[in-house]
């Protein structure tokens, strides 16, 4: 299921403001790639260009190429809705649908896209919740509202919802920043399990987290406020955190600025 992503010459704009400039990188399948960098450097914007969520923002547009396998996501005639079925996303704040039960939340992506048999859905919901390490906690309350779960459970519910549609790639935008350390640990464990099946890209402000969960790490920076963000370097996580090739990366990681 997992696919490789090749990005070349990608710039993203908010109306006339260029938020990120000329980014090229490769994201390996069945691995975790972490994006780190100071606030406002365009990590989240870049992440959102990978499933065409950037253009949902008014004025958002993109130049460049994103190859998922051998298809350009920004090619002519590509349907953004189809792209988002291939590339799932988990957001910073847990956002289960408030009108739906736990079960309906997980089934939402499938139900809203077509009709499924009840027995089929039951299987997918159970598999997704097990995949998100949430099954044991919610199996007796599948029909209770999803917003009644704790924050960490809600975030895992959102992950279950995202993997229920069997995407190729899973994008995570600071998935643990609103969670306590124990829930964070649960999500991090989950990420290392999920990378067996999905290509995972995670944005994080927590350097230890990047070091713990990711195989490769990309460092983004911007030269000044109001300037577009740029990719400084991408390398194996171990190398980035021990012996980065750019001085700015080392400064950021060791806390000398940012």
């Amino acid at each position: 299921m997992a696919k490789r992503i090749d990005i070349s010459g990608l710039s993203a704009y908010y109306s006339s403001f260029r938020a990120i400039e000329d980014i090229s990188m490769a994201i390996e399948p069945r691995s975790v790639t972490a994006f780190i960098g100071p606030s406002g450097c365009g990590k989240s914007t870049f992440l959102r260009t990978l499933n065409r969520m950037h253009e949902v923002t008014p004025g958002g547009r993109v130049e460049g190429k994103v190859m998922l396998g051998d298809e350009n996501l920004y090619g002519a005639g590509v349907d953004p809705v189809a792209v988002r079925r291939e590339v799932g996303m988990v957001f910073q704040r847990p956002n289960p649908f408030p009108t739906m039960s736990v079960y309906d939340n997980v089934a939402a992506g499938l139900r809203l896209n077509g009709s499924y048999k009840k027995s089929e859905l039951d299987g997918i919901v159970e598999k997704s919740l097990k995949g998100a390490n949430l099954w044991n906690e919610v199996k007796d309350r599948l029909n209770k509202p999803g917003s009644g779960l704790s924050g960490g459970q809600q975030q895992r519910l959102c992950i279950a919802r995202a993997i229920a549609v069997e995407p190729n790639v899973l994008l995570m935008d600071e998935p643990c920043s609103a969670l306590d350390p124990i829930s964070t640990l649960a999500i991090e464990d989950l990420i290392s399990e999920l990378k067996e099946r999905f290509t995972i890209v995670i944005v994080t402000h927590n350097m230890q987290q990047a070091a713990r969960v990711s195989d490769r790490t990309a460092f983004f920076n911007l030269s000044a406020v109001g300037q577009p963000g740029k990719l400084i370097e991408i390398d194996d996580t171990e190398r980035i955190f021990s012996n980065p090739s750019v001085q700015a990366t080392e400064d950021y990681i060791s806390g000398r600025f940012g």
Partner: protein
Amino acid sequence: MSQTVNVERPSTLQGARLPKWAPLAVAAGSIALGLGISAAAGLDSSIQWALLAAIFFVLASYGIAARVEGRRQAKDRVATSLVWVAFLLAVIPLVSLMWETVERGVKVLDGYFLSHSMGLVTDTEPGGGIYHAILGTLEQVGIATLISVPIGILTAIYLVEYGRGRLAQAVTFFVDVMTGIPSIVAGLFVLSFWILILDMGPSGFAGAMALTILMLPVIVRSTEEMLKLVPNELREASLALGVPKWRTIMKVVLPTSIGGITTGVMLAIARITGETAPVLLLVWGSTFINTDPFDGPQASLPMYIYQQYANSGGSGAAYDRAWAAALTLIAFVMILNLAARGIARWKAPKTGR
């Protein structure tokens, strides 16, 4: 030494407090004082002694609290008592109106009254009922609701979910203008277009069109506000699952806000149910039962009330009927509001565990 000081002086966090019954006592005292002064000065209006009592209440609350508790607490008490006085000032007219309507309305309000029309009963003699008016009101309001709810909700969806630039601005502007249209103007507009230009006769439908004009902006506005309350994160969560935008709106945005939208619609219905002017111009009124809203004059409750009052020539029977119809109208609107609250509570996003 220090121990004795501690015993003698209470904690600095505790201050003198007035007892719980103090505000009630002050209120009773000021009412007595207000009554006493108005009796002594020979004022016979009940508003005057109540206003005097309200002023005494606020002043006394401040004075007593300032002396016992300190100035900050006194200001707090003044703010609290002002809120209470304002609350009572707002509620008293409402309660007295309800009281008056119920007291005078129940006299002739019975099953016969609700199930018979005026027919050949003349305005000055007793008997007759409001069945034809209830029927007319239900049909006119029902048609107006059927037309304006879909248009209003779709307009609001356009404005919130799709509208950008000039067109959306223009629509918002015209909705704002429509909000301010007096009902008589809406009635005159339909009158000149439907009856004078197209040469149609008076009918419930013509009245419903004018009511639609009045109802539409209310629905658009309230639905718009409700849709804006839906967090953007929910839309993004749905879009990121690969759900098309229209399905996101249908299955995520609307269900999340349906409680508020329903309340808005019910309030809009409640608002137009009491409209008299356009009905007077376009439906003309009738003393007979007319079940066809597309043909011929119909009655409606507000107009029935007006006619019973205006054409009665001072007859008590007509006044009684007008009050009973008013009571029916108020009850109808109140039931609608209760239903709206019920639906809003039932459909509200559940947060329980």
